[in-house]
């Protein structure tokens, strides 16, 4: 392949591949990302697919997409507006045009813009011809016919050939970004090595697309995103859901407690169940339960029997698990409940992300029922928060709710691979066989943690359950004083964990004009505008919370350091409500978005600037 003489260096580029659900956009996007990663770019990806598996062909409902931002600096999000949109049919162009920045490149399959498809997607005239796309750089590639003709020598049916359209489109994008096709070829070989014909079709289509782009003059300038300066180490691209699953595997290995997952499939949490089902070789026991309740109850049983027990779900499933979480609180057993949040209420928008289960996680149970609540904030750090959730849960004999969301779970970024031995040790408080002093609710005076006495162990037979128990002995009790005391102990035990978690960090100075407060999956989309404003010299800071119940011990201090505090959330104001209860003396502003979309850099920059510039609080 000849190298182009001129290209422009760019710090980052956002590309989105969109097409019909069956057009192979996820594969094209993944291959593109992996190739960029091997070259040395940092990246963040996000698949965007409809809830329907295969909605009718060429319809707006059936559009599936894959967005990726690659960069030569640290990349915190999949980006807002695309620099390059690859649209394989009119429907995908129609639904995604609003996400292309003015002057951006649109690559289309011109063959797919036929009368029938245009009509189905509601176009009255062909946008490729009517001038409506004049503000963009339009690449009208006859992808379908080119794919067929370039593959004609391989003697396959037209239908078979057309399945490689995605590779033809990827070839064009690879040229536009001066990507090295050798790496992409290698990924294709790994994927299709056992099917030589499919491999050949895909490789040929990929090269054909690249050559086409090189030949036509319409392309103009191409771009190159230089290598990012990443910390030395071994990396891989990882999604939040896989990272969550692996974090638990690591915690199991490090603690010596076998891993058990009881779960029921639910979007967007199912990937964790799928991933752990594939890791039986590491001894994990995965139980696909008959419902959400059985998922958590089986985990409680496994926890009593000595396993690191997990249940995974999304919002509606968390509602179903509420009663059982109460049982885990009462029995003081370790248990991690992962809630990959999605837009609610009820079934809501299953494939869209939201942060609206925070209050449910904090308070959604009968009785005084405190649990630890934590939230991961990037796809890769799902690994570390899953690990920490497991550690806290086992060491403190208490359920932990770990919140992630669809954006984190399905999104992916580069993950620097750690060594399990370098992770913090996990020491569950196991009771010793034949310990004559063992009592089910005897506690460590410092941490208030009871011991974990595992069935089968000699000399420790005991019963626990959902009824209130006397302290130390664990016999059933309705004694008024005992109940109040036990409520106090359970509360105190959870609060004490604040001493074990790291203090809250601020990105920026300790004091200033505007402190942006956020939690969970929005870290990347808030950090991008905050860092840009800091570069301009603005006195803005960012406190992003991963520990929510309990809050880090220095939280008050963090909130007091700034003239204005704004809490940004993808809900109607749940974290701010919680902060108001905990620290009522602080004056809070809030910014809430609840559209199934992430925050965009543009909207936040404008908002933050306005707040910094205005005097009054």
């Amino acid at each position: 392949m000849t190298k182009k003489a001129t290209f422009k260096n760019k710090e980052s580029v956002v590309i989105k591949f969109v097409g019909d659900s069956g057009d192979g956009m996820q594969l094209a996007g993944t291959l593109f990302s992996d190739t960029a990663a091997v070259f040395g770019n940092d990246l963040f990806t996000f698949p965007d697919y409809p809830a329907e598996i295969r909605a009718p062909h060429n319809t707006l409902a059936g559009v599936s997409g894959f967005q990726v931002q690659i960069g030569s600096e640290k990349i915190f999000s999949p980006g807002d507006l695309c620099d390059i949109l690859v649209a394989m049919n009119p429907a995908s162009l129609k639904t995604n045009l609003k996400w292309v920045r003015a002057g951006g490149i649109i690559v289309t399959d011109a063959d797919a813009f036929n009368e029938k498809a245009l009509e189905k997607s509601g176009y009255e005239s062909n946008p490729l011809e009517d001038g409506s796309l004049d503000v963009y750089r339009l690449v009208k590639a006859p992808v379908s016919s080119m794919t067929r003709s370039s593959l004609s020598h391989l003697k396959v049916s037209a239908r078979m050939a057309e399945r490689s359209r995605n590779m033809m489109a990827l070839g064009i994008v690879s040229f536009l970004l001066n990507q090295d096709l050798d790496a992409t070829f290698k990924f294709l070989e790994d994927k299709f090595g056992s099917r030589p014909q499919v491999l050949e079709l895909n490789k040929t289509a990929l090269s054909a697309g690249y050559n086409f782009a090189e030949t036509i003059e319409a392309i103009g300038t191409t771009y190159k995103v230089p290598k990012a300066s990443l910390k030395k180490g071994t990396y891989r691209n990882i999604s939040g859901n896989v990272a969550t699953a692996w974090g638990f595997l690591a915690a199991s290995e490090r603690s010596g407690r076998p891993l058990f997952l009881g779960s029921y499939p639910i979007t967007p949490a199912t990937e964790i169940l799928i991933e752990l089902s594939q890791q039986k070789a590491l001894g994990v026991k995965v139980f696909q339960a008959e419902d959400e309740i059985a998922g958590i109850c089986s985990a409680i049983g496994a926890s009593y029997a000595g396993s690191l027990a997990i249940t995974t779900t999304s919002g509606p499933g968390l509602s179903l698990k509420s009663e059982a979480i109460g049982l885990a609180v009462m029995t003081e057993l370790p248990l991690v409940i992962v809630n990959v949040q999605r837009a609610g209420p009820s079934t809501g928008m299953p494939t869209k992300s939201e942060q609206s289960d925070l209050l449910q996680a904090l308070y959604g149970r009968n009785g005084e029922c405190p649990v630890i609540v934590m939230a991961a904030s990037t796809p890769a750090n799902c690994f570390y928060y899953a690990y920490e959730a497991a550690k806290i849960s086992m060491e403190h004999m208490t359920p932990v709710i770990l919140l992630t969301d669809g954006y984190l779970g399905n999104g992916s970024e580069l993950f620097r691979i750690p060594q399990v031995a370098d992770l913090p040790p996990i020491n569950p408080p196991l009771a010793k066989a034949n310990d004559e002093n063992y009592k089910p609710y005897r506690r460590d005076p410092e941490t208030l943690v009871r011991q974990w006495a595992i069935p089968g162990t000699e000399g420790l037979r005991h019963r626990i359950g959902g009824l209130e128990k006397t302290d130390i002995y664990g016999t059933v009790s309705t004694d008024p004083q005992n109940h109040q005391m036990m409520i106090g102990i359970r509360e105190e035990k959870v609060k004490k964990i604040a001493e074990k978690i790291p203090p809250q960090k601020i990105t920026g100075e300790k004091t200033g004009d505007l402190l942006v407060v956020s939690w969970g999956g929005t870290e990347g989309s808030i950090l991008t505008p905050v860092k840009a404003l800091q570069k301009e010299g603005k006195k803005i800071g960012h406190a992003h919370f991963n520990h929510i119940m309990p809050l880090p011990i220095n939280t008050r201090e963090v909130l007091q350091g700034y003239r204005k505090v704004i809490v940004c959330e993808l809900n109607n104001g749940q974290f701010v409500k919680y902060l108001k209860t905990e620290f009522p003396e602080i004056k809070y502003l809030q910014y809430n978005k609840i559209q199934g979309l992430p925050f965009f850099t543009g909207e936040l920059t404008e908002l933050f600037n306005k707040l910094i510039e205005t005097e009054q609080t």
Partner: protein
Amino acid sequence: MISNRILQSEQELSKEDFVSDQMVKWCPGCGAHAILKAIENVFPEIGYKKENFMFVSGIGCSSRFPYYVNTYGIHGIHGRAAAIATGVKLANPGLSVWIATGDGDSMAIGGNHFIHIIRRNLDVNILLFNNQIYGLTKGQYSPTTPIGSITRTSPHGTVEHPFVTAGLVMGAQGTFFARVPDNNIKMMTEVMFEAARHDGTAVIEILQNCIIFADGTHSQVTGKEVRDDYQLHLKHGEPMLYGKNKEKGIQMKGQKLQGVVVGLNGVEMEDILIHDRYEKNPGIHRMLGKMGPPVLPVALGVIRSAEFETYDDMVEVQIESAREQTEIKSVDDLLKSGETFNVT
């Protein structure tokens, strides 16, 4: 003594090894007392190490059971004993897991878990206290209350068709089903031993009397004056005979079971069905399970005990074979598997 993968006790155990220090708070005259007694009888006989017994329960009178027997135990939440027990058994297949549940707990609020644990054939034993009433909430009708019964919530009589437990269990592909009256501790003890010996989900339906809210609900079967004619005590390999002098028997006529008198109307001993509890085809077991007054006796004892693979065994086998086939031996191996790249 039963020998399988569950560790056996090195010492001889006795009833006292399983008596708990808690006050038993069931009503005097409640059928549950007999069940507790039978458990205390049978656990030493089963012979597992006492720490390897485990009780799980849901909510209701029956579900206080774990507090009254000295084993490891969880008193769970309403209807979920089967789900909790599934986690216990999968996490540690070396435990002998027993579930204490009632008709409401297992077949109303916990109906879903009940049919699925049976379908999977998890190796646990379920003691189903069927008193045909909600006791702990004071007398509402349950899924097994006979149609027309007057209860606190059916002042004009229930208009619901009740479950026949045997039918539900075998419909859910149950591999073991037994039925015992609460006033026959000997039979109960024998059946519990057989349940423990069975690999798979063993359901024992105990026809239990609730002296307060449904007194005499099973008296048509358990009453002294009727029991000879309405109890068929099944024994594997033996003809199905009942009646005071075992003069009556069960015969297959056409596609139905019928009660006949041996020696009358040309019926001979060889016409009487021989009980085969190990038969895999549940056809006759289902018919036996549904049988009952006023025309036929109720089948008691082990009705079905068919051998099928257990869920917990299959889980273990898959893990073993996955371990043998993989090169990923640790989480470090996993983290480095697939597409990775180095930054130097």
